[in-house]
């Protein structure tokens, strides 16, 4: 059996991390959020590389996004804060756990979602879920904010995290491709 400890961020390098990634991790640190539970995409991969280089953060990968809701619930029950990092396509895989666990039991954590299917999308199969993200969150009663520019990350995220822990519920933080970029593929 393969028993090695590969980089959880894969090929991404911390020195190439964008400013928004650093700002997000700094905001997490200010709120004592040290667990990052994720299913990667290329956007989150850049943030995860930076986080992995910082001993403050523990990275926990999952195989299906719904697991992250359970893991973050367990971590909160154990006295630790964390964040869920997924692509919007994984929101659909998480809906019942968000509704029946995180919302019902009032488990607070930021739900970071990198947005495919909006600006600059090349993949037609991403479009429908891309449009549905905010509607899904609204239907569950999960408050959400969109980060579109690096100069608003700090203030919006600080405020959202404070609200998240006041409300004791997950809060959606959507990362727009306006800030994170999109792929060249046509």
């Amino acid at each position, binding site marked *: 059996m393969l028993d090695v400890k590969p980089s959880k961020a894969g090929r991404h390098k911390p020195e190439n991390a964008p400013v928004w990634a650093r700002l997000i991790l700094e905001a997490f640190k200010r709120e004592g959020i040290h667990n990052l539970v994720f299913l990667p995409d290329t956007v989150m991969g850049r943030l995860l590389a930076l986080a992995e280089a910082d001993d403050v953060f523990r990275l926990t990968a999952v195989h299906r996004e719904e697991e992250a809701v*359970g893991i973050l619930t367990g971590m909160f029950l154990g006295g630790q804060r964390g964040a869920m990092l997924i692509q919007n396509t994984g929101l659909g895989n998480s809906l019942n756990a968000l509704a029946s*666990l995180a919302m019902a039991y009032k488990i607070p954590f930021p739900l970071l979602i990198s947005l495919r299917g909006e600006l600059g999308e090349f993949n037609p199969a991403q479009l429908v879920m891309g449009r549905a993200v905010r509607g899904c969150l609204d239907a569950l009663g999960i408050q959400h904010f969109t980060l579109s520019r690096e100069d608003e990350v700090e203030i919006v995220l600080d405020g959202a995290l404070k609200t998240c822990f006041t409300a004791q519920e997950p809060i959606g933080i959507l990362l727009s491709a306006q800030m994170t970029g999109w792929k060249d593929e046509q």
Partner: protein
Amino acid sequence: MIDRREATRLAARLAGPNPIVSSVGNPTFDLFGVADRPQNFYVWNSMGMASSIGLGLALSRPDLRVVVLDGDGSLLMNLGSLATTTMARVPNLVHVVWDNGGWEITGAQPAGTSFGVDLETIARGAGFRHTAGVETLDAFERAFAEAMAADEACFIAARIEDGGALKHRPSKTLTSLRDRFMAAIGA
């Protein structure tokens, strides 16, 4: 075959002060009915999530040995969590699955476990090195005691007989379940 309420009572006793996460339906109703204690976290819905909750708890609390009481139907919904537990390298998780071959609470419809699906083999394939498959209460007691004393993640598939559903229900004020549990484990 194992009487799952006897086995549940046994698990709660052998768990000592360690936390138990119980899956939706009969695992939760049984645990509440025969061994309510503040170190129990009762899942009221969220089918499949008990193993993930247990993993998060184990990661955040290396000082505790976390017990998950799961059902075969629930685990089959979240088999990937077994692989995730391996990837997270937690040493302090004991994952028990009550296997009655299906979804008893909804009318005893057979699931894959009635057609040759072997959860212990799946757990081994997912990377659990310490596993057991038991069919008697005595064998369960031995396997569970060994798992509680081990220093790695353990998986026990326990073949149980159908036992109907208890009428006992834990609190429906879910934040009170949450808060009681957190206070009990000092979170």
